[in-house]
């Protein structure tokens, strides 16, 4: 009987010469991606895991059993009732953006399963598709139970089916990266940049925070998912190596584009969780410190190994680490009814921590929170609308996120006219991405364009109900409804001053 290593390549390296159809017809450029290269150029494609189907099934079964065991032990509603309310909102944010994006990744992987240019790549992509099914199903299963605890958890499934502004941005990203990309762009965008470059933020950083917050279920879930990601992310490296060999400039462009798009997504999802929604006593590092430790060293090393340069906007990215998620969080807090989770207002202790972690930019952010606190002092607790905006805000024509680039002193929004229409961008890299492929982005309507063309109501309440799919019991509020001890003490002090 042959040993595993003797027969393995017979099972996973199954490319053959076609006799009655041309190779280019089997793998057309439009679906397989460019540059179109003959199979000979891809024949050395390889990855380190070399998993067989039997091994895959056996390993995944064991992992699923382990997740179920943890769910049975600590995944009940009463276990979640013990967790901090702010942390539960980090969970709602993460849960909504995860499962159906993972489902879109099933589509991307299945396209590579058919149109990837080497059979070992196609085999691995097939496992990747099965992985992503699992990553869709696990959070849906875990969070479904929590709908009984809090109806906002319903957005775990509902989110991607709405026209909420975060959902529009999320779909814009995952539709391009996962659903519409050819296997070459998909492999670089998803496997090399998003999974290899960034998901440590989710799987190492957030699981560590979950452990500190006492959320064993979330910790187990993301760790289990990470073991799959670590395997199928290996697809990206050999695809990128081949692309560099044949079209270095295009390879660099794809890395630059997808690093920026991925960064914005993670800054919102993970930046919020790490610097605002995790209770102060459980925070181990700031978002910025985490990105430096877990993302930058590894990503820069990968680029060096491949002979690629850092993205051209590297300094802008480093600057944004100090400010972008703070700008979006403060803005979103004052538009919290437009999303499906609640926001924590940073009090004096949290603000002191943020000032220490972000000495360069926090002095510009702190007056915003002082003003919000002043508005809460005026209204007293429970009056959400006194700290809530009513005027429509602006969105980026590339990332579809709010125009929160730069700092309060200098918003980096940019205006560009294309074929008679005006487009706004949150940053120079988003404008650059648009200009590279305007035909890909120009027809898309952001929330403002939907309002101006009559597709969405301009009145905020109507917009929330009719367009964003939110109702009063679902939409975001202050997590404490303004009932903070520090705020109460401030109100008392102000009253005493007035009396005196």
């Amino acid at each position, binding site marked *: 009987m042959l040993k595993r290593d003797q027969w393995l390549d017979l099972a996973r390296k199954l490319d053959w010469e076609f006799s009655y159809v041309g190779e280019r017809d089997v793998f057309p450029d439009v679906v397989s991606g460019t540059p179109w290269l003959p199979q000979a150029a891809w024949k050395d494609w390889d990855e380190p895991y070399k998993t067989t189907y039997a091994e895959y099934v056996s390993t995944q079964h064991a992992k699923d059993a382990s997740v179920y065991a943890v769910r049975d032990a600590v995944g009940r509603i009463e276990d979640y009732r013990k967790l901090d309310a702010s942390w539960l909102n980090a969970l709602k944010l993460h849960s909504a953006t995860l499962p159906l994006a993972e489902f879109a990744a099933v589509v991307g992987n299945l396209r590579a399963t058919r149109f990837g240019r080497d059979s070992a790549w196609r085999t691995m992509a097939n496992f990747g598709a099965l992985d992503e099914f699992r990553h869709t199903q696990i959070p849906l299963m875990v969070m479904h139970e929590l709908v009984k605890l809090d109806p906002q958890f319903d957005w775990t499934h509902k989110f991607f089916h709405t026209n909420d502004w975060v959902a529009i941005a999320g779909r814009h990203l995952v539709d391009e990266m996962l659903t519409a990309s050819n296997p070459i762009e998909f492999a670089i965008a998803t496997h090399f940049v998003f999974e290899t470059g960034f998901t440590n933020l989710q799987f190492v950083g957030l699981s560590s925070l979950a452990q500190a917050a006492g959320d064993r279920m979330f910790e187990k879930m993301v760790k289990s998912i990470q073991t799959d990601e670590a395997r199928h992310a290996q697809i990206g490296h050999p695809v990128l190596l081949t692309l560099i060999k044949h079209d270095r400039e295009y390879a660099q462009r794809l890395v630059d584009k997808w690093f920026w798009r991925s960064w914005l997504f993670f800054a919102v999802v993970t930046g919020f969780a790490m610097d605002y929604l995790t209770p102060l006593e459980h925070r181990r590092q700031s978002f910025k410190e985490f990105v430096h430790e877990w993302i930058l060293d590894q990503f820069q090393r990968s680029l060096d190994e491949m002979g690629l340069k850092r993205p051209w906007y590297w300094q802008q990215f480093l600057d944004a680490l100090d400010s972008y998620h703070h*700008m979006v969080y403060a*803005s979103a807090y004052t538009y919290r009814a437009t999303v499906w989770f609640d926001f924590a207002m940073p009090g004096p202790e949290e603000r002191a921590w943020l000032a220490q972690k972000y000495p360069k930019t926090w002095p510009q952010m702190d007056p*915003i929170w002082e*003003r919000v606190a002043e*508005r809460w002092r005026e209204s007293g607790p429970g009056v959400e609308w006194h700290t809530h905006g009513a005027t429509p*805000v602006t969105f980026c024509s590339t990332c579809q996120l709010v125009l929160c680039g730069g700092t*309060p002193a200098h918003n980096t929004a940019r205006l560009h006219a294309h074929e008679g229409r005006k487009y706004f961008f949150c940053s120079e890299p988003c404008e650059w991405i648009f200009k590279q492929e305007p035909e890909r982005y120009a027809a898309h309507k952001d929330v403002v364009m939907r*309002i101006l063309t009559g597709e969405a109501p301009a009145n905020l309440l109507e917009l929330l109900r009719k367009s964003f799919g939110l109702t009063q019991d679902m939409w975001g509020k202050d997590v404490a409804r303004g009932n903070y001890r520090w705020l109460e003490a401030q109100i008392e002090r102000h009253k005493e001053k007035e009396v005196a």
Partner: protein
Amino acid sequence: MLVPLYGFLRGDTIGMVVLVHDHQTIADVAKVLQQAASVRVKPAARARVYIGTHALDPALTVKAAGLGALDRVDVVQEH
């Protein structure tokens, strides 16, 4: 005629879409934007409106200043 403008108030965290009539003044534009952002930035009695680095005359109307739909204006408070 109503003119939607992309307004950025210095000191704020986000750009806003403000709707003004073309017969309103540039001073009105500053007021409308400051009011829209007032949950985050306390309005000031005086503020200048800029297109790029060019400060607009507060007495000009929106139309006379040449502002059209979806133009960008920046507002800087004067303390």
